[in-house]
């Protein structure tokens, strides 16, 4: 049975595979196309990028972890290739995991997106929910999964302290940038070890 929502989701997935935007990947779970797992790379030259590491083992580690997460070997392969290609022999890009829950109203209604990894960001709640306008009232049926993930990625570096989901992070971002960056790096490291 193929409802408009499912048809559209299949098309989104195909597009994501054929023409993936930089630093983003996602795939539906095996038995449920309405629930997706996705990863976002921390943007370059930001505290979110996880620092440098030239350890080859780490690459392998990423490979296994991402594989486990995404359940799609060819996607993993792509990611690995990507990370190797763009690593410039230094960075292991830090990845952040998310889930996207779709409904039969898609694309007329937005999915529910939340971070699985622990985040420290002014617009991300403690439970991982994201405060983003296109996911609420500014949603349009034209946005697809790639667009959603891209805008979340740009949100990481451009928070909006006026609608704080995490008041501590928002305050720190406005007042003490260095402390904020330090906390971000800390959390990136923590989640890394927690994997």
């Amino acid at each position, binding site marked *: 049975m193929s409802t*408009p929502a499912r048809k*559209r989701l299949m*098309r989104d997935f195909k597009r994501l595979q054929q023409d993936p935007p930089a630093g983003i990947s996602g795939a539906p779970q095996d038995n449920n196309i309405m629930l997706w797992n996705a990863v976002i790379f921390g943007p370059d030259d930001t505290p979110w990028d996880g620092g440098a590491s030239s350890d080859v083992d780490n690459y392998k580690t990423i490979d296994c972890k991402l594989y486990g997460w995404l359940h799609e070997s060819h996607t993993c392969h792509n990611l690995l290739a990507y990370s190797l290609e763009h690593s410039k022999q230094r960075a292991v890009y830090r990845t952040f995991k998310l889930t996207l829950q779709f409904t039969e109203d898609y*694309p*007329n209604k937005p999915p529910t997106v939340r971070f699985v990894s622990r985040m420290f960001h002014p617009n991300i709640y403690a439970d991982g929910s994201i405060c983003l306008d296109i996911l609420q009232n500014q949603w349009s*049926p034209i946005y697809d999964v790639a667009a959603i993930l891209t805008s979340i990625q740009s949100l990481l570096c451009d928070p909006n302290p006026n609608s704080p989901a995490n008041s501590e992070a928002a305050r720190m971002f406005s007042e003490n940038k260095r402390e904020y960056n330090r906390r971000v790096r800390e959390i990136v490291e923590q989640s890394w070890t927690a994997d």
Partner: protein
Amino acid sequence: MDSEDEMAAMMEDSNDDEEFYVGGGGYGDDDSDSDGVVMDYDGFMDHDSDDSDDLSSSHLHYHHRSQNYTILDEDDIRQCQEESITKISTVLSISRVAAGILLRHYNWSVSKVNDEWFADEEKVRKTVGLLENDSPLPDVKELTCGICFETYPRDRMSAAACGHPFCVICWQGYVGTAINDGPGCLMLRCPDPSCGAAIGQDMVNKLASNDDKEKYNRYFVRSFVEDNRKTKWCPAPGCEYAVDFVVGSGNYDVNCRCSYSFCWNCVEEAHRPVDCGTVSKWILKNSAESENMNWILANSKPCPKCKRPIEKNQGCMHITCTPPCKFEFCWLCLGAWTEHGERTGGFYACNRYEAAKQEGAYDDAEKRREMAKNSLERYTHYYERWATNQSVKTLLAMLGLFWFTGLDFLFGYLNIFFGLFYSISYEQQILLEKLSDIQCQPESQLKFIVEAWLQCFILDALYILRYAEYLSALFVNLIVECRRVLKWTYAYGYYLPENEHAKKQFFEYLQGEAESGLERLHQCAEKEFQVYLNSEGPSKDFNEFRTKLAGLTSLFSVSVDIFCQQLIGAGVTKNYFENLVRALENGLSDVDSDAVCRQAGSSKNVGSGSGKGRGGKGKGPTSRSNSSRNIDDSTHWSCEYCTYANVRSPTVCEMCQQRR
């Protein structure tokens, strides 16, 4: 006919007292034209009776007050909407759909739309989403939908004025979802986030399902009332009317066609003489937890150990808190029980407390408790009286029903006689025979006369009954209205500042007078009319029939008399209430402290007497004539029947024309 003459005479009197009978009721339907004539007179309902044609203007002399509000039903709303759209559409030379969108955006204010449009058309177009040109779809055989990314032939695609193409299936989903999300669908824009082209009713009609179209239409009509600052829905449950109000004099009372009266400003029930701010404070206070907290503070003490509030309702001073606390202490001084006992004065007193009180150690807590108690008592005093009047209103509504039922019963009774009389021909025959014997006239002529006479009588009786129904409706409504005013005076009294003693005394005096007037009206309504409800069923015996008929005639004339007097009495009370309302609205600014103290002193005597029930016809205790309404007894006198305080005429009451 005697009854007819009396009826005519009474109506002549009524014409003179025009001020009172102005509430002629709204005859005929309220047209969709906004100049509909609906009577607006405080305290009188809009009596929209269909059979009002009988009571036409030839008998009742009502005048039109300048109306500051109009009642609109759904058709009226639609019509107003259409008119506004037509106006804008012609003046601005745009389509009706575009005009509709514009108007909705500017809250249905035609003047605002005109101002903004001619000030900066570009800006308006951009804000509202009205594009100048209508871009057609690209002229290719097939197009790709921007939502589902499938390709379809050109005729299965559609676009707004911006030209962004989407397939009709996706359009239906998009519009349907928006409509199901609520009235936000009226501000729908193109799905493309960078484009703000507005989607109007024409596109919705083209692309949505029938159910959704219906829903959209309903939201559109409702928007005229909800987005428009000049109209509001009537808050009565189940009422579908809206009220268009012209803000002017400051009196916001509105009588809806469904007979519910409310204040247009705050959409609560009508609450003269208090202002809207006080009303909302009062309602908040009634519902808020603050009073509960006050009660707890006033009537309970916290356990010294676990701090939970404890109320002591009997027994000795040795308190053991409930588990898990189980702390034992003395209620009086809240100290541990282990230090109490015989030494400290026994189990019912507490030396330590007395000593401590003398030292002033417990003053603060005690003071707080005292204050809480006092404020609670004061609030309870006013609240109870307010609430009683609230429930009295339902009693009154039932009373009104009771009264109407009585009238209906009489009406039915009369109908039965009417039918009976014409169906029982032999009685007619007997009557004719008897009459022809008496009158020595031929039967045929008599028959004609008798029949004509009977018809006239029946019709007159019907007429009288209708009129009586109408008057009694006014009467009952007057009582309801006075009750409502009285209820809100209690809220007013609560918010009077404590230190203004003169005002307070004057206020309480006014209130007392109002209450006693109202009690009298109540007595009239309940007692007097009881008598006329004891009717027996129709009888076949002609003699009984004749007596009954005669009885009915006199009954009607007498009841009309009673009505008259009661209504005059009601008119006096009504005037009095109007004065009270006006005085309170002026903030009791015209208070003369000397006069007040004198009046207040004697009002105490009257106040205690007014609580007891009195007979209806104003046979009040003679202390009334000494009442503080007359400052100087020698030039004023109170009529015994209607209690009007006569000044000018020495022997005949001005109001009810009774001799002194």
